[in-house]
């Protein structure tokens, strides 16, 4: 079930909010709805999730209570069990067909990829490692850990929440009106990012990437890649915002996941702004344990390549994802080797341009079905090779007026500009008008937020009701 579906938005969510507001035992309610959420989308694969919870509860307690010399063993066992599940469900087909080249296996026998397995596996690993490092105590009850791993807002597409972040909130939290208000704001903004921006851009990107190379012109290749660049950002940031919003509504504070990544001036900065919960996970649980940058440049470069190769594979079980990860690793290494110093001497605009283009070319690799498609697509973007044929569609054949409008607005929305403008023009003026009419600023702000939330929800409902194509990209990770 996706957040932007009719089933979730108009049935599941109201029922959950109603129960959560009126009944006690909110953890039990949240857990019951989380199980229902997963069963609704994945059926009996909920058993994989429950097995993961059970393994991690057992391993966490074993690590917590074991004598020092056995703690590492229990941690290793826990990590192996989690990775075994991930390997089997996510990488089995890749290993068999692509790595080992065994053609004898019937592709129909490749296991189904349970929704969100990469996310809940990483959350589980963070739990075990935090317990091992004594950054967190083992979960006091199975239901606490189950709720941490299975909580539906962040179960299938993040953000990746550390156990230490929510351990206290699981036991003791107060749900204030300001939490709910901000939560609903986050949720509606996230929904709008997904439904209005990502889905409109998805239609453009899908149409362009579906074209055979001989029908792909340079203008269209740029249009498609830029559309995909927006799609993946708004899709994922939108989902994260919805998850953070729902978390707040439930009284949980999840970490922010995106901080305007496309305003970065280097790839190093990009990874500090993009999918922050994943990059910090890799930093804390892989890069630093590998030695980070403490053992000289060569070891640092090796560590970066290892981390980004795994980061690429985390996104998907295919060579193109691995190449995408290595491409980013290479850029980070090159920046460390001296490019960053060169960039620092360039005008700001040039630095932005460098970062945007580097990310954009990476997204082509990420989106392409094969290296050959990526090569042809990039060649067309760079005007290399043969001209496109007479059958090349014009941009207007692919991009509607609506998509243009959201594309342009999306560029603004991907920067802090739109937020600053709306704050300056809308919020400040409304508050001033409210003061003139004798309203307290708090009341005016609440009314403004309420109108904004309702307005966005109604607008999104128009699109959702029209049954537009609306898959979440990050669900496959």
């Amino acid at each position: 079930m996706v957040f932007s579906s009719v089933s979730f938005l108009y049935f599941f969510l109201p029922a959950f909010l109603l129960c959560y507001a009126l009944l006690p035992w909110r953890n039990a309610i949240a857990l019951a709805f989380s199980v229902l959420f997963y069963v609704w989308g994945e059926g009996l694969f909920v058993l994989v999730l429950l097995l993961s919870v059970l393994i991690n509860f057992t391993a966490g307690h074993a690590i917590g209570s074991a004598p020092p010399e056995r703690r590492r063993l229990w941690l290793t066992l826990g990590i192996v069990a989690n990775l075994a599940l991930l390997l089997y469900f996510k990488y089995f087909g890749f290993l068999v067909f692509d790595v080992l080249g065994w053609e004898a296996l019937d592709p129909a026998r490749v296991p189904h990829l349970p929704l969100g397995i990469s996310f809940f596996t990483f959350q589980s690993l963070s739990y075990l490692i935090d317990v091992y490092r004594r950054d967190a105590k083992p979960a006091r009850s199975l239901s606490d850990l189950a709720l941490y791993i299975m909580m539906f807002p962040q179960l299938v597409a993040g953000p990746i929440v550390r156990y230490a972040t929510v351990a206290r909130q699981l036991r003791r939290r107060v749900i204030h009106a300001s939490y709910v208000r901000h939560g609903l704001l986050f949720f509606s903004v996230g929904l709008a990012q997904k439904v209005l921006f990502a889905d409109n851009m998805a239609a453009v990107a899908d149409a362009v990437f579906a074209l055979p190379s001989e029908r792909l012109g340079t203008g269209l290749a740029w249009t498609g890649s830029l559309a995909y660049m927006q799609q993946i950002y708004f899709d994922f940031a939108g989902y994260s915002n919805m998850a953070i919003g729902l978390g707040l509504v439930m009284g949980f504070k999840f970490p922010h996941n995106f901080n305007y990544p496309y305003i970065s001036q280097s790839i190093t900065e990009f990874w500090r702004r993009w999918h922050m919960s994943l990059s910090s996970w890799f930093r804390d649980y892989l890069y630093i344990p590998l030695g980070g940058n403490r053992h000289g440049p060569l070891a640092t470069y090796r560590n970066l390549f290892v981390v980004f190769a795994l980061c690429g594979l985390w996104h998907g079980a295919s060579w193109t994802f691995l190449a995408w990860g290595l491409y980013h690793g290479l850029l980070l290494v090159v920046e460390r080797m001296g490019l960053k110093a060169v960039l620092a001497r360039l005008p700001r605009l040039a630095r932005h341009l460098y970062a945007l283009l580097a990310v954009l070319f990476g997204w082509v690799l990420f989106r392409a079905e094969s290296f050959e498609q990526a090569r042809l697509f990039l060649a067309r973007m760079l005007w290399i090779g043969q001209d496109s044929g007479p059958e090349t569609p014009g941009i207007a054949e692919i991009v509607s007026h609506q998509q243009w409008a959201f594309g342009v607005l999306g560029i603004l929305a991907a920067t802090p500009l739109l937020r600053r403008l709306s704050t300056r023009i809308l919020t400040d003026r409304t508050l001033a008008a409210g003061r003139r009419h004798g309203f307290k600023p708090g009341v005016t702000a609440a009314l403004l937020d309420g109108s904004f939330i309702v307005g966005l929800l109604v607008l999104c409902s128009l699109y959702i009701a029209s049954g537009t194509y609306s898959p979440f990209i990050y669900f496959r990770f």
Partner: protein
Amino acid sequence: MARADGRISNKARGLLLAMALFLGLPALAMLWTDDAKRADWENHPLAPFPPPWDRAPESAGFFPALDDWIDDHFGLALPLNRLHRRMLFYGFRDSPSPQLSLGRDGFVYLNTHDARHPNAAFTRLCDTGPVNREYDRFAQAWLGILEHFQDAGLRTVLGIAPTKPVVYPDRLPNSVPRAIRAACLGYRQAPPPLRRLVEDAKTRGLRVVYPLDAFVAHRDDDNFYPRESFHFSGQSAQLFAQTLMREVGIDPQPIAIAPRYEGRIKADLQKILGFNRRIRSTQTDYGAFDTRVAYRQPDFVTTCYQRALDFGTYETGAPITERTALILSDSFGAFTAAHLAPAYRRLTWINVSDLRDEEGPGFLTDCLGRIPAQDLFFVFHDGGALWDGGRLQQTFLGTH
């Protein structure tokens, strides 16, 4: 877990309940939703509620089926959908349906009947290659039909209505592929197979008219073809009717000089656009002829043509002639009938687009035999006329 984990303030509780109520409105509205209306509007049967115990191998599972059921039954779907379509149409100037193309300044073209085949209506008309290759078969079908009815003593005319893509090819939007736009621009110079049909009919003493040149000559007259519909109406429909009248020996001057006025008519694109709207059109006042229309008359038509929807009869108190006529047509027939009616004491039009092959013989004997007609017009638009000939030959004459 038997404890109240997570205290909640009353304000927060109120906000949660308000949001639950707001988001739950579509679920509540389900109680008052007219499912039959939605099924009719969307032209498909709505998904049934899935039995939880369904374990059939072909079953997709309970929850996917439940999603389908919710998608098909949630309340407020129709108003939200209409609002969305209006926003696309008026706000973004985009077509809300793949079946329509919105030209520059909102000029509407029919793109396709079947969304799975985009631009089919344009290619069918403007790409004359496939038609030319099968011209003989198509032509023989029409000439056979015309001959059959002419031999039965009816003054028979095939009127082919020129449509927007070839009358206004220069206004086709850039969303239509360049090659198709070029083909439509070059259509008149081609020369189109429909012109061959006119000539071939003439040599066999049969009547086929295709007034494309006349339409092009008048295309820039104010509101000649309505901007907001792909069907003709107003002046273009009247010009077409005049052409047909000349062909059966009736002087069209009386209707040509009838007073005109600017009016708004109900657009007939409701099913495609998803909402109702009124469009600007030039209307003619045929009050002097004392013309009255009875829709869906004669009612016996539905007994031999089950899916008949678009038919009716004009009775004229002061007609130009005392003759009677029948129009068998596609959707352009009703527009033609309105302007042809003053020429006849009685004129019936029937849109035969949905007539099934097996209904053909019964339709000919039990229905058409009971409708008085001295003149018979077949009216089809140029995008489908040739194919319609083959279809009607099979339906009426039982031959290919």
